[in-house]
């Protein structure tokens, strides 16, 4: 490196240190950090950028994204709304609000955000994927496979030791049978249906076909599910139960419940 180049770089470095950074440059760097998973560093830059320029939509959008990453949904919603206050057609903010509505189970609230995002920006594959998924939830039932469920006799069920949260629902969310109190049953049916619907959409989008079996492992328990002919059966067992063994158990319960597709 020549002396002139060295001096130029040194001078540039010194002036770079003393020159205040613009909000745009802070947001640009924050977005880069976000892509690298450096969320804490990104959050500091966004706070600083919004202090300098509080009316830049992209700053609030990045702020919203980080709140979502930190699972701070009320704050994320507020930031997405700030973006829309500055730019009412911002597709990413509309999409962000749609996703928050969706995870709150507010399907009707989710739909207009997705519709607006796609209306203004038709080439938006993420929004289209969710829009198509949600559309199937409220579409009139097509001529589906008929499924007969016998009278459920709790005594006949061969429940494995430690099994709990046995739940049988239709894929539209209608509860057929569940263990536990009324509130627990409601929560089980809602969650089971949502998991089934979103997992089905994911499998379909990957070109893999209809959902047949599922295993959801939590830190303390594992839930096994089976689906066919418009019904979903789920049961929760100890966490250590292996995939194969758990699916055998749920298959046995399917037989005990006398479900005929």
């Amino acid at each position, binding site marked *: 490196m020549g002396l002139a180049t060295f001096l130029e770089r040194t001078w540039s470095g010194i002036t770079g240190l003393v020159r205040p950074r613009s909000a*745009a*440059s802070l*947001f*640009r*760097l924050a*977005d*880069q950090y*976000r*892509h*690298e*998973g*450096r969320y804490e*560093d990104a959050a500091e830059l966004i706070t600083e950028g919004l202090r300098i320029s509080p009316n830049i939509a992209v700053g609030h*959008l990045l702020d919203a*994204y980080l709140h*979502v*990453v930190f699972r701070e949904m009320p704050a994320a919603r507020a930031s997405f709304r700030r973006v829309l206050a500055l*730019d*009412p057609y*911002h*597709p*990413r903010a509309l999409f*962000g609000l749609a*996703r928050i509505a969706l*995870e709150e189970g507010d399907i009707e609230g989710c739909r207009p955000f997705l519709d607006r*995002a796609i209306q203004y*920006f038709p*080439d938006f*594959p*993420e*929004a*289209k*994927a969710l829009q198509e998924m949600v559309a199937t939830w409220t579409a009139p039932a097509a001529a589906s496979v008929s499924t007969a469920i016998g009278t459920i006799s709790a005594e006949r069920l061969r429940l494995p030791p430690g099994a709990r*949260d046995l739940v049988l629902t239709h894929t539209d969310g209608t509860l057929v049978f569940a263990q536990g109190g009324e509130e627990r049953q409601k929560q089980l049916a809602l*969650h089971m249906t949502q*998991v089934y619907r*979103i*997992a089905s959409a*994911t*499998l379909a*989008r*990957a*070109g*893999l*076909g209809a*959902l*047949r079996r*599922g*295993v*959801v*492992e*939590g*830190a303390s*328990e594992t*839930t096994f599910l089976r689906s066919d002919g418009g019904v979903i059966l789920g049961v*929760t067992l100890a*966490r250590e139960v*292996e*995939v*194969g063994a758990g699916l055998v158990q749920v298959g046995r319960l399917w037989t005990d419940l006398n479900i005929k597709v």
Partner: protein
Amino acid sequence: MADPQPPVDSTPPGGSSVPRPSSRAQAFRETLFELIRLDGVRGGLIVTPDGLVITSELPPRFPVEALAALAATLGRELELGSSRLERGAFRTALFSADDGTVFVGGSPVGYVTLVADRNVNNEGVRTALGRAVDRLRGSWRTP
């Protein structure tokens, strides 16, 4: 109506910046590479809860953006359900269909999603995914 913006508008005007390698980003990539080398795994991606694809290794025919949006939505539902139903923090899930299986691993960083063959070793992939999720939890604590 405001001027149209591309949906992926999180970068302010002035051009995009060149990402620098960081330990956490490197950990994401290494984690995914390790998992997609397992027998029967066709590919996968890591997506943050807001739907940003951190890294993706899917065959060309897979619609990455759509899958990322669905994976993030599924991951959040699994996370919320585990918490509401008091089953402990969500770790892993698998969903099998006639032509393949999707695995999802949950971590504070985001969701690891794998697309695999139907006859993949479910227990083997789930165990490997569980270990990967634990590593991602570690990288969340130590950036």
